[in-house]
C-alpha cells in the first residue's frame, strides 16, 4: 500500500491508498458530519451531508467525502461558505421529514438550519439506507429493502423474512437517525402477527 499525501483544511495528511477522504480526515481528528455512513457498511454516498470542497483542474467541486478516494495532492476544505450553505439546505430538507430527530437538531444548530423552511412531509424517513444496508451486509438477511423510486421511494420490510428473522435481531434499530424504522417495523409486525404485537413490551 503506497502512502498518499493530501491537504485537508490546510493540514498535510498522510493517507493510505484506497482510503476515502472521510477516513483520512477522521484519522487526523477533523470531523465531517455524516448520516448515511457507518464503519461496518460499504460506503454509500446518499445523504451528501459529508460534502467537502475539493480543488482540482482550476475549479472547486463539492464531493461526498465518504465515497471520494484520496489522491495525491488533493486539496480538501471541510468547511467553506459553499459547503456550509449546501449542508444547511440539505438539513432543512431532512428536517421537513424528521423535525425532532436529535442528530438532525444538533446539526441544524451548528449550521443554522431552519426546521420550518419547507412544509412538513408525511414520512419521518430520510432514506439514509442504514437499515437496508445493515440487514443486507451485516445481518445478511435482506428483510428490508427500498421500494419505488424517486420521490416515492420508501423502505419496506418483507413480511415473510421478518417473521423468520427480525425478532431475534433488531440490529438495525439503533442505526436509524430518525426513528422512522421502528414505525415501519411495527407496522409490518402488526400486519403479520396481529395478536403477537399486543404482547407486553417486556417480551419483545
Amino acid at each position: 500500500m503506497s502512502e498518499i499525501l493530501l491537504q485537508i483544511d490546510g493540514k498535510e495528511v498522510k493517507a493510505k491508498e484506497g482510503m476515502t477522504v472521510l477516513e483520512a480526515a477522521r484519522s487526523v481528528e477533523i470531523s465531517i458530519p455524516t448520516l448515511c455512513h457507518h464503519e461496518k457498511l460499504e460506503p454509500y454516498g446518499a445523504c451528501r451531508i459529508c460534502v467537502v470542497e475539493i480543488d482540482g483542474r482550476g475549479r472547486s467541486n463539492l464531493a461526498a467525502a465518504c465515497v471520494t478516494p484520496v489522491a495525491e495532492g488533493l486539496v480538501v476544505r471541510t468547511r467553506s461558505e459553499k459547503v456550509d450553505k449546501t449542508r444547511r439546505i440539505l438539513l432543512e430538507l431532512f428536517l421537513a421529514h424528521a423535525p425532532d430527530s436529535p442528530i438532525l437538531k444538533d446539526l441544524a444548530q451548528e449550521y443554522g438550519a431552519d426546521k420550518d423552511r419547507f412544509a412538513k412531509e408525511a414520512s419521518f424517513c430520510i432514506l439514509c439506507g442504514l437499515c437496508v444496508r445493515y440487514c443486507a451486509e451485516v445481518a445478511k438477511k435482506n428483510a428490508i429493502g427500498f421500494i419505488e423510486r424517486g420521490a416515492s421511494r420508501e423502505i419496506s420490510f418483507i413480511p415473510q423474512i421478518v417473521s423468520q428473522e427480525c425478532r431475534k435481531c433488531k440490529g438495525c434499530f439503533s442505526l436509524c437517525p430518525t426513528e422512522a424504522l421502528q414505525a415501519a417495523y411495527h407496522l409490518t409486525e402488526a400486519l403479520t402477527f396481529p395478536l403477537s404485537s399486543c404482547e407486553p413490551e417486556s417480551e419483545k
Partner: protein
Amino acid sequence: MPRINSPGELEKFRKDLISKKNPDKPCIAICTGTGCLALGAANVVTAFKEEIKKQGLQNKFDVVEIRETGCPGFCERGPLLVIYPLEVCYLQVQPGDAEEIISQTILAKKVIDRLLYVDPVTGEKIVHESEIPFYKHQVRNLIGNNIKIDPKSIEDYLAVGGYSALAKVLFHATPEQVTETVKNSGLRGRGGAGFSTGKKWEFARNSAEKIKYVIVNADEGDPGAFMDRALLEGNPHAVLEGLTIGAYAIGSHEGYIYVRQEYPLAVENVGIAIRQAEEYGFLGKNIFGSGFDFTTKVHQGAGAFVCGEETALLRSLEGKPGEPKPRPPYPAEKGLWDKPTNINNVETWANIPLIINKGAEFFTSIGTAGSKGTKIFSLVGKVNNTGLVEVPMGITLRDIIYEIGGGIPKGKKFKAVQTGGPSGGCIPEEYLDIKVDFDELGKVGAIMGSGGMIVMDEDTCMVDVARYFLNFLFGESCGKCSPCREGIRQMLKILTNITEGRGKDGDIELLEELCAATRDASLCALGGTAPNPVLNTIRFFRNEYEAHIKEKRCPSFSCKELIAYYIDPEKCQACMICLRKCPAEAIIGGKNRIHVIAQEKCTKCGTCFEVCPSRFGAVKRLSGELVPSPIPEEARTIVRENRK
C-alpha cells in the same frame, strides 16, 4: 446463407448483390418507422401489396419492388414514401392512394401532384425528396441511409457499403490505430456529456484486465426525443458495425445493447440484425477469418429514465436496481461486473463506420472547432415541420427552426427553444443565432444533451415548462441521494404553487438556493442537471415568474388557475357557436340572447376563445384581473335593427 471469410469475399459478395439489382427497377420505399406506423403505414404497405397482385405485377420481373424502411425523419407528414430511381417523394399517403401510385407513377411515370410537398410560402410543388426545404438544409450522413435500406435485410446494408469499415480495421489497422483515428476525428459522445469518444476508448483499452465489455446505450428517455430509436430501428447494422469496431479497438469480446423495452421495433430489428450478422460471420467467432471474436446480446431496460446514466445502466445490466454509483472509479476501470467497460450512445456508435470509411479528416471537415461531425435532433413542439433532422455542428438554431422546421405554426410568435431533454435549458429569441455545438449551448445555460429540441411559442408559459420538466424528473430520479430526491420534491412544490397562484415573495430566491444545492451535491448527472430548467427559465424569463407571484397573472394565458374566459357583451352576436362547442356546457345564452360564461362550470379549455369568429372577437382571456360580473338577465336580449 453464405459465411463470409475474408474482406475479398465480402467485396465479391457485395458486387454480386449490386449487379443482381436493376437500378432502373422502380422501388417504393415506404417508411415503417414507429412514427409512420402510428399514422397507418402498415395499412399502406398492405394496400400496395394487394394492388400489385390485383394489377398482376407480382410475377413480372423488374416491374416494381416494395421496400419497408426505417424513419427518414419527416414524421410530420407521414406516412411517407419515396419512389426510386425517380426519387419522387409522396407525403401523407393513404391506403386508397396505392392504386393511383402504381398505375400513374410506376407504370405511366407520371407524378401525382396532390401527394407532393407544397412549399407553404411559394405554393410551389416539390417532386424530389432532396429538394424539400426540410431535407435540403440537412447533412444526412447517418439517417440518410434509413430510406435506402430495409432494416430487416442485411443485404440492403451490404449494398450501401455495409461492413466494409469493419473489414478494413480488422485487416489493415491495429487497435491503437483505430483508437487514434477516432480520437483524431474529434467525435464527442452523442448521449449528452460530449466526452471525447477516442479518449474514452483509450482509457478502456489501457486497462490491463483480460475481460472487457462494450455497451450500446439505447436507453433513450428524454421526452420528445427519438434519434436513437430511428437509428436502431432503421439501420441497426450500422450500430452493430460501429460496436464491433469499438470492441476490436478496446480489446473486448463481449457486448451488450441496452435498449428500453418501450422500443419494441428497435428491439426486434436489432435482434434480427444480430442473427443475420452472426450467420454472415460479421459477429461471433473468427470474424471475417481475422481471428477476432466478438458476440453481443440485447438487454431490455425496464423503463427507468435514470438507467440512461452509465453507472445506473451497468447496475441494471447486472440485475440490480438502477441506481448510479459514485465515479471514480469510472466504468473504463471498473464497469460491468467490475470489469473495464466502454459505454457509448447509439448515435456515437453509428458514427464509427463513417469515420473509418471516410477518415478522420472527412469528419473534422464538418462542424466547429470543438464539435465535429453532424448531430441528429428531434425537432418537435410548436414548429411546422416536426421530425428528425441531421445537421452539421455549428448550424444556428434559427436555421434549424426556420429553414428546416419551417417556422412557427399559425403565425404565432416564437418564445423559446428547449434543448437537451428534461435537464436542458430554454433558449430565448435573442440567442437564436448562436451556433449549435457542445460548448456554445452550455454558454447560455442549455446543453446539447442527446438531441431533443422542443420549440415553444407565445402561448407557452415558461414557469409551467419548468414545472413540467421537474415533474418528469420527480418521477424519474432514482431516489438514492437526497439533494436530487428532496431538492426536486421541494422545487416542484414551489413551482406548482407559483403556477396555481400560491406563489410568495422569496420563492425565486428559495428556488435558486435549492437549485445550487441540488446541482452541487447530487451523486449523478441527473441531479446535477435537474435544476437547469428552473435556473434557465429564471434567467431568461424572470418577468414571467414575477407576474405569477406578484400579480397572480400568467402572461401566456396558460396556467388554468390564473386565467378566466369572459364574453364581452358589447361584442357578442349570440351566434351560438361557442355555446354549442363548450364541452363543459358552461355557456348560458340562446338565439338573440347574449352569451355568458358560468365561471364556476368553466374548465378553461379555451374552446370558446378559439371558435369565436374573429370578426366578432367577443371572447376575452383574462389573467391577473377580476372577471367582470355578468350583465343582468334582462339586458341580454339583442334587438337586431334589420329584423324589426
